[in-house]
């Protein structure tokens, strides 16, 4: 093999719009939190929270993951992306669906509007899945990271198809199972099957690369893979046939699998040669600390302790928030600083060596702004959890304001990176 990964990199035009759209959506969500804090202080099955969750899951998290994957797949699979056109169509459809579906939830517009929105998302995501699978077919490279990514992509397709079924079932009930149980099924297929597995696949390659960690025990990842997937299948079947013991078994299996992965990441951290954690890696580290919260909350919700009975509903909202706004969002914000500057830097400075002044990729954003953003985000997130736990709208609103400022700063840095111009040598 005598190939350079950057030769397989896709056009930045495919990648960058995903980051910009994602950042803007996340900013829009913070304004929704400010003006509608009640979304977080009632039962989680409410139209406002459904809208916010879908905006986050599709318009922010999945959107940025798609963009990042188009750049990373050639690195991990060592081939070019199958089709850039498909990626652009997928972006347009996902973007459109990510706005329309939450809009239909917000206005409780069940029926055709919701089906059309959900169908647009299914087609957009279907294009993405096909693109990734066709790319994988061209690659002979075998690695656990690749298997995680491909499995995650299949779970993503399952999640959106289950979502479409839910949307139809909401207007024309044909399934005997309650909407709440179906929602749990859809949500966990998405969170564990898609987000967590994708994160494992990508981070187990990238984080050791960023920290320069070698000689890691990848068997831990193989264990993680089997425990998570077997656990998830047991969980989904158990939820469908309403088998409580199956659900409990599934939670233990999935959580154990996640711990295997965390042990791998911890090993990489301990064996790292690059000691200093830059701002992107600091926010990444914080996201792993946050992950302890949902991994603990799931057991509290599962065993329904009497002493916490009055807190069950707020804790269920807190559980979802620690995953979406806590762990995944924090990880994506942190990793944006590790990936986007490199993507733009390569675009701007390829074939420019010696002709222009070359900054380092980290010079493309303001570290000061990123640092303020990180701590405002952490404060906003903690405030949100307090507001949810005490079901107090004003505290949730205050968290929305803190998060809004943090995300505005994050967007400032994204745009600073995206619009970076080289300086000519005098």
């Amino acid at each position: 093999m005598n190939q350079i990964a950057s030769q397989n990199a896709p056009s930045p035009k495919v990648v960058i719009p995903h980051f910009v759209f994602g950042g803007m959506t996340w900013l829009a969500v913070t304004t929704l939190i400010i003006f509608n804090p009640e979304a977080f202080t009632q039962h989680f099955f409410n139209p406002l929270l459904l809208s916010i969750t879908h905006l986050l899951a599709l318009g922010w998290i999945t959107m940025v993951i798609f963009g990042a994957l188009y750049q990373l797949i050639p690195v991990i699979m060592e081939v070019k992306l199958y089709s850039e056109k498909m990626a652009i169509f997928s972006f347009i459809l996902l973007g459109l669906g990510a706005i329309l579906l939450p809009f239909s939830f917000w206005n409780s517009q069940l029926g055709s509007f919701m089906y059309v929105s959900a169908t647009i998302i299914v087609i957009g995501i279907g294009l993405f899945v096909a693109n990734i699978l066709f790319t994988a077919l061209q690659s002979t490279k075998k690695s656990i990271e690749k298997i995680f990514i491909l499995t995650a992509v299949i779970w993503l397709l399952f999640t959106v198809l289950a979502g479409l079924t839910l949307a139809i079932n909401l207007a024309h009930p044909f399934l005997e199972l309650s909407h709440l149980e179906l929602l749990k099924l859809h949500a966990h297929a998405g969170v564990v099957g898609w987000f967590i597995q994708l994160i494992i696949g990508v981070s187990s390659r990238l984080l050791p690369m960023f920290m320069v960690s070698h000689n890691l025990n990848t068997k831990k990842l193989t264990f993680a893979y089997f425990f998570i997937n077997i656990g998830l299948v047991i969980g989904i079947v158990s939820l469908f046939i309403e088998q409580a013991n199956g659900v409990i078994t599934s939670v233990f299996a999935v959580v154990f699998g996640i711990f295997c992965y965390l042990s791998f990441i911890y090993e990489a951290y301990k064996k790292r040669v690059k000691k200093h954690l830059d701002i992107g890696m600091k926010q990444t580290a914080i996201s792993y600390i946050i992950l302890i919260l949902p991994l603990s909350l799931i057991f509290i919700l599962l065993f329904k302790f009497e002493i916490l009975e009055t807190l069950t509903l707020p804790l269920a909202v807190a559980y979802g928030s620690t995953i979406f706004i806590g762990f995944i969002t924090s990880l994506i914000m942190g990793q944006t600083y590790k990936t986007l500057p490199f993507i733009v830097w390569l675009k701007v400075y390829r074939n420019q060596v010696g002709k222009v002044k070359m900054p380092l990729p980290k010079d493309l954003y303001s570290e000061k702004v990123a640092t303020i953003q990180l701590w405002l985000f952490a404060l906003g997130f903690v405030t949100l959890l307090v507001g949810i736990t005490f079901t107090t709208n004003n505290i949730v609103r205050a968290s929305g304001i803190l998060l809004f400022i943090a995300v505005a700063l994050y967007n400032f840095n994204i745009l600073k990176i995206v619009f970076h111009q080289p300086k000519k040598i005098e």
Partner: protein
Amino acid sequence: MNTEEEKILQLLKGVVDPELMVNIVDLGLVYDVRVNESEKKIDVDLTLTSPGCPMGELIIEDMKQLITVNYADYKVSVNLVWEPMWTLERLTEKGKAALGKN
């Protein structure tokens, strides 16, 4: 390595890995430098810390540019090699110290 090859190795300390912010020589990425004076050729064997490293292309471009400026009448080739695979033992003491700080 002869004196000329040593000189090129020193020169290559001016090429920095943009992620690790340490020069490629102290990272132990330069495996060999060969100067053929009669054919006016310079060959450099280079590896990367990880096969997926997306910075490879720019590092190579930077190396070629730097050598060409100093050896204008030579043909410069940089060969990317993956064997033996790069390990931490290839880091120089300076490289280790720099990574510990950066």
